[in-house]
């Protein structure tokens, strides 16, 4: 596998906010077509990791490569070209609440790819159908949808432009287990159908097992373990064991006071 260029490669990525070091020399490779799930407790830097890769944050040091291209020092225009490869499902869906559902899904097609509104609407309705939503939903506003439906719309928006890399930020947070399972299945089928590479962050272990080709655990700003989902129970790593079993006592000391 080492002869292939990783789709995403991070080396020694560091990010601090004031005195708080969130990413501390993090290394990670995500290979083409692979679905990697990064697990870890709240506040361990999972979202910061994704935001650094996407370009919403800039690392203090280290390198981030997309398709072998170092992106941390790119100018805005070069960065925009790289961003066209991305799709993202946000934790809170982040739908544009002033637009109809179909306009949300078609946004990337119209603004980034310059598609005509009529064509983009047809594509948006077809993409909504892929995530199990009928054409009538396209005419609704985001506020009139449930959290689960909003996640599905957000997934449709993320895949509408057929991105090469899709990021999923806590895809099952805030929705019931059945809808969570449906969202996971949609993620797996969407990613496999498109042949996309996926990087997901979550602390939902059921979701991680369903989505992942490989699971990586982040702790104190570094990846401390990485392996296939069926290896995680026998990882031999006490941090991983404590996390997946949800044990209060162990090497991970949760901060319970501010």
């Amino acid at each position, binding site marked *: 596998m080492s002869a292939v260029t990783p789709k995403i490669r991070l080396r020694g990525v560091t990010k601090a906010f004031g005195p708080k070091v969130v990413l501390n020399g993090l290394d990670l490779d995500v290979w083409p077509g692979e679905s990697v799930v990064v697990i870890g407790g709240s506040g361990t830097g999972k979202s910061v990791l994704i935001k650094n890769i*996407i370009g*919403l944050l800039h690392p203090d040091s280290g390198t981030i490569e997309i398709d072998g291209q170092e992106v941390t020092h790119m100018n805005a225009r070069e960065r925009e070209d790289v961003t066209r490869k991305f*799709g*993202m499902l*946000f934790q809170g869906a982040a*739908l*544009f609440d*002033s637009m109809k559902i179909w306009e949300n899904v078609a946004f990337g097609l119209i*603004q980034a790819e310059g598609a005509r509104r009529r064509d983009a609407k047809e594509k948006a309705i077809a993409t909504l159908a892929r995530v199990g939503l009928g054409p009538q939903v396209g005419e609704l506003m985001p506020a009139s949808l449930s959290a689960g439906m909003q996640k599905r719309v957000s997934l449709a928006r993320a895949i509408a432009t057929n991105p090469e890399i899709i*990021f999923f930020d806590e895809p099952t947070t805030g929705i019931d287990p059945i809808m969570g399972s449906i969202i996971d299945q949609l993620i797996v089928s969407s990613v496999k159908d498109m042949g996309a590479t996926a990087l997901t962050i979550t602390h939902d272990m059921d979701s991680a097992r369903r989505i992942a080709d490989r699971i990586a655990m982040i702790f104190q700003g570094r990846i401390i373990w990485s392996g296939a989902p069926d290896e995680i129970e026998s990882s031999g790593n006490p941090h991983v064991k404590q996390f997946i079993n949800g044990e209060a006592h162990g090497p991970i000391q949760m901060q319970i006071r501010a």
Partner: protein
Amino acid sequence: MPILAPIGRVTIAFFAVIGRVSIFTGHSISHCVRPPFFPRQILRQCIEVGFYSLPVVGLTAIFTGMVLALQSFTGFSRFSAESAIPQIVVISITRELGPVLAGLMVAGRVGAAMAAEIGTMRVTEQIDALTTLSTNPFKYLVAPRLIAGTIMLPLLVLIADVIGVLGGFVVSVFALNFNPSAYLNNTINFLEPIDVLSGLVKAAAFGFLVTLMGCYHGYSSQGGAQGVGQATTNAVVSASILILLFNYIITSLFFTI
């Protein structure tokens, strides 16, 4: 030395804010003049800033013109200068009251709404979503608002000027028994292009400042509903102060240099 530390902190914080606003302003202006443009967004903001502000600006202008005529009459009658009322009304409205009051009303209506909308988009990650959809938030959110504010406020002020003078005319003719044609003649003959032009230049500056403050505070908001509320307040307060400050600066540039 304990007194120096807080003074230093406040001074550093003040200059940090000035620096952030300056960078935001430069960044915003550069996106206003570089393609791609979003004409649909610009049109939408023009309607929002211009058309929907018309009732509140019009009402403000007409009552201001009416009160101005009434107050001028009661004051000027003390030294028999009532005949100057048409001139006082038209010069006050076009040079000062039209642009300043319209600016303040638009700051309260539009600046607050922009800060709230963009602030909500910030805290709900909608602005991050724009970036992941290869759309620069400055181009899509900020530039259309700045362009709309700078174009539409002069148009609003032009209408406010007419309505304000009309308000003064109505009170003067129907309540103070002025001759209508003499009133209009005095108004038109006394008015010079620089009076209107200075007001429109002020209006363009105020429109830019109001929308800039709305966008800046919305874009910088943090921490959920409380942060958005704070951003809204800050947008209105800072825009109002800047309007009064720049009103003095532009007035002195036009009429004292």
